[in-house]
């Protein structure tokens, strides 16, 4: 970057003045001559802008780094005093590194604890899913419970079926009890008894 200004003299040594297009010598008199050259305007403008935009970033960074290294200085290693838990940025030496740890970056221990929490919640979720699967399996097998997601539907015929199956499994007998009437409807609206 600093040696950009050497490009033109190098080019001028390569392209000798023998080439008439590059350097045209105008003679106004026997002594005074003017050499026609290609314009340097674009080169100068490019280098100016390059240096301008480069230094816009470099000057503040240099000042900050200079201040941090000369005026603030690096930390000294020391034992952790008793009954004191150091903050997470006090484990770093360089002041800029401490700044980043304090305001920019996620703490080291926090990352660890987040991973532990993630594992714990995943384990809990897996256990709950297993429990749900077990409950569904048992409900399907036994068919005797309403279920926590079950909408209450009165199915008198199924209840009757189950009762009849129980009676049949007990065994047939000569003494047959009278068949019961189904219970009165309670949902959505109880019937009017007038």
């Amino acid at each position, binding site marked *: 970057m600093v040696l950009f200004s050497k490009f033109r003299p190098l080019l001028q040594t390569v392209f000798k003045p023998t080439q008439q297009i590059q350097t045209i010598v105008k003679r106004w008199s026997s002594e005074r001559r003017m050499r026609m050259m290609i314009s340097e305007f674009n080169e100068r403008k490019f280098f100016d802008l390059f240096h301008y935009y480069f230094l816009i970033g470099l000057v503040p960074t240099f000042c900050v780094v200079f201040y941090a290294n000369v005026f603030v*200085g690096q930390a000294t290693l020391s034992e952790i005093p008793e009954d004191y838990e150091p903050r997470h940025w006090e484990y770093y030496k360089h002041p800029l590194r401490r700044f980043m740890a304090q305001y920019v970056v996620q703490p080291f221990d926090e990352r660890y604890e987040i991973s532990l929490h993630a594992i714990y919640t995943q384990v809990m979720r897996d256990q709950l899913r297993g429990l749900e699967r077990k409950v569904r399996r048992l409900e399907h097998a036994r068919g005797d419970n309403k279920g926590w997601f079950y909408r209450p539907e009165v199915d008198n015929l199924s209840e009757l079926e189950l009762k009849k199956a129980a009676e049949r499994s007990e065994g047939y007998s000569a003494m047959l009890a009278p068949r019961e009437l189904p219970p009165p409807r309670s949902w959505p609206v109880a019937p009017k008894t007038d």
Partner: protein
Amino acid sequence: LKMPEPTPQEHVYGVSKWSDLGYSTIDMLYLRPVRWFHQNVVERLRGPAYPYYHRKFGPVKTIDQCEIQDQVCFYEAEMAFLREKRIDTMIVEILHDRLTRCIAYEGRIDALDKCAKEKDALFESHTNWYQKYGEMGVPHSCIDAYMKQKHLMIWMRRHPEVDLKGWAIEREYENKAKEYIKSIPMPMEIR
């Protein structure tokens, strides 16, 4: 707790004119201005000193103490295992570095006599590292390391006469190297 840091290489004057000249130019151009700046400017303008601490990791259950299906315990044991592995790797690297510096200081041939302690320390630490962490495959977990330790102990119990670390082979190699160097015909002034 002071960590022993390697000291910067001292320049020995009188070895050769050119090394002296090179060191003098570097000294004048870089070291003296920097030292002057540090002593006169930085130390006068520097603010108060402040501490930083060495991170301490608390004791954590290892895998043999964890309950069955306790994923959180597994993770913590794994992290502790990886920390221990990194520390052991650094230790082996430091010992290797010490041997290299010893050889560079003494010379390749005098190192056979004078660097025996560094060599033995490196050999011991390297074999221990290999017994603990080596030849398990990549990737490997703390459970693989635990099983390796168990199988190693069983094997050592069944074959107590075998020299696992290989000290006999190491000593034999050292003696052979020394005998070879002695067998080279050389005038006494150089040897």
